């Protein structure tokens, strides 16, 4: 994948971006004043972005959530938190670099930040396993959540994974056990916990760091029990029906907000998070601050009770009681 990558429905946007680049280059080389042309092109870009991004289909949202230029956990860590100290390893097998974690400060306050980490290029992706953790990644995450709990510090998790890695070693070392243990232990943590889906929320591999007091979603992120491709292959018997599956699964932030599964949506700039990572991070920063303040007003008992109530209420069954 080239450094500047675009999705199909972004073609028109990409063309205008290129024109702007060329114009800027020309102006610099020849010392021309192109202010007028520049303003007109930038206006055109803005309206194209608005038009495109206001009418995204669910499957297009999936593509934005997987956008190769989308901000990842480390991009947010850099912009929102300070004093980050990365901690490594599960103390049992190895360090899984598809999850990054460590102490950081939010507005000066020490917190634990844990997130999936994808790579920008092939080399990084091999190192990060495309953001698909092995059991040791989840065990590292749990170890550090427990560390935060020991010192009464809040836990922030950032979710961005196609899913837990389905491979030989992962099965041998207990992928299912690692995920399951995290679910149970996160349900019982005595400190405030906040998760935010920043890109792809891929099934159990996402939930394994996502059982939290509050679940937030970036506007163009997705969260689903199965990928649209996987769902289409099983239920439509054809991977090419992934657009239908994406719609049926109700995996977008507005859908999940409507279903009452998530607590809040963080608005992304026009053109998506990748169009302006700084502004996106700023918006997220504000919401994390507010959400943490809200949770800090609760006692550990209240936190525990509310968390249980939240998850016990999930689903639709009849009769209800």
């Amino acid at each position, binding site marked *: 994948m080239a450094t500047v990558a675009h999705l199909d429905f972004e073609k028109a946007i990409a063309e205008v971006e290129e024109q702007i680049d060329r114009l800027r280059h020309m102006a610099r080389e020849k010392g021309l004043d192109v202010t007028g042309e520049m303003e007109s092109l930038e206006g055109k870009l803005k309206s194209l972005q608005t038009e495109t991004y206001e009418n995204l289909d669910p499957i297009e949202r999936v593509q934005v959530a997987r956008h190769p230029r989308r901000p990842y956990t480390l991009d947010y860590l850099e912009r929102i938190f300070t004093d980050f100290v990365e901690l490594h390893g599960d103390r049992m097998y190895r360090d899984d670099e598809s999850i990054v974690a460590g102490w950081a400060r939010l507005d000066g306050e020490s917190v634990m930040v844990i997130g999936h980490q994808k790579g920008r290029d092939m080399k990084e992706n091999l190192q990060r396993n495309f953001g698909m953790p092995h059991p040791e990644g989840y065990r590292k995450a749990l170890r550090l959540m427990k560390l935060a709990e020991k010192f009464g510090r809040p836990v922030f998790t950032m979710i961005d994974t196609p899913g837990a890695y389905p491979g030989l070693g992962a099965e041998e070392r*207990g992928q*299912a056990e690692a995920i399951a*243990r995290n679910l149970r232990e996160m*349900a019982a943590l005595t400190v405030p916990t906040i998760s935010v889906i920043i890109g792809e929320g891929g099934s159990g591999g996402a939930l394994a760091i996502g059982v939290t007091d509050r679940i937030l979603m970036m506007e163009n992120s997705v969260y*689903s029990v199965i990928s649209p491709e996987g769902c289409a292959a099983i239920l439509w018997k054809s991977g090419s029906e992934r657009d239908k599956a994406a719609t049926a699964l109700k995996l977008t932030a507005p859908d999940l907000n409507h279903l009452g*599964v998530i607590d809040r949506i963080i608005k992304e700039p026009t053109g998506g998070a990748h169009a302006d990572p700084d502004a996106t991070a700023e918006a997220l920063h504000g919401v994390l601050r507010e959400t943490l303040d809200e949770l800090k007003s609760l006692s550990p008992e209240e936190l525990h009770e509310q968390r249980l109530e939240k998850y016990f209420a999930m689903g639709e069954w009849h009769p209800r009681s």
Partner: protein
Amino acid sequence: MAWFRKTKTPLKAQDRRDLPGDVWEKCPSCNEIVYREKFRENWNVCPECAHHLRLPALDYVRLLLDEGSFTEMDAEMRSGDPLSFEDLKKYPERLAQAERKTGRRDALISGHGRMERIPVSLAVMDFSFIGGSMGSVVGEKIARAGRHALEEGTPFIIVSASGGARMMEGIFSLMQMAKTSAVLAELDRAGLPFISLLTDPTTGGVTASYAMLGDVNISEPGALIGFAGPRVIEQTIKQELPEGFQRAEFLLEHGMLDRIVDRREMKASIAILLRHMLSLPAPETSETGSPEG
């Protein structure tokens, strides 16, 4: 015990070619042809080679609980259609079809009863209902059975058999993993035993939640247990899987299971564990334990 005794050598296949097919069952492992009734009496374990065929959900209730002690809970609970989900079929149609096929409202039987006189909460998954997939009803019934155990201060036993999450309930099916694990966290805090019995097959979101969270994880010989399905793994790693991969024996070897137990000894084996964990005395009739018993 009568069902445990070895039967006489059965007839050879050619001797009974003319007999009606539904009377006989061919063991997929040793190819022996056995009276179907013999399989039944033997809890669907081959009397010749001890191969374990799948056992219907209700039979696990009979297998594990004292006769007549079971009280079912939430038998009428049905799933909604929170996503108005439609693939090639509408979800409510799938549910209705599964209900006609199984006579059950969803993929789990839950309730309470006694196991060698020890009061327990029990939940058994039914693989014949949409592949034993976990949706809102499975999650809610497990949560309720777990809370019943909490209220009564009794152990909780779950028999799993599942292809994973109920895709047609989307995110809600995923969230059942969190919900069921949360109720197990409560049992943990209360110091109550949780026994997970993983039967063939247990995969996906069920394995990655309550099925792997037993204080003791038990399985049956040859059961398929995994997080990802074998096909998904083969497609990912682009190579064939080794023989026996994701079978119970493989999981035992890799430290994910405490024990593999012959189904015919399952009840006695779990009861021994429960008495240890509940500090109950061993029954006077109990035989001396052995490392393999």
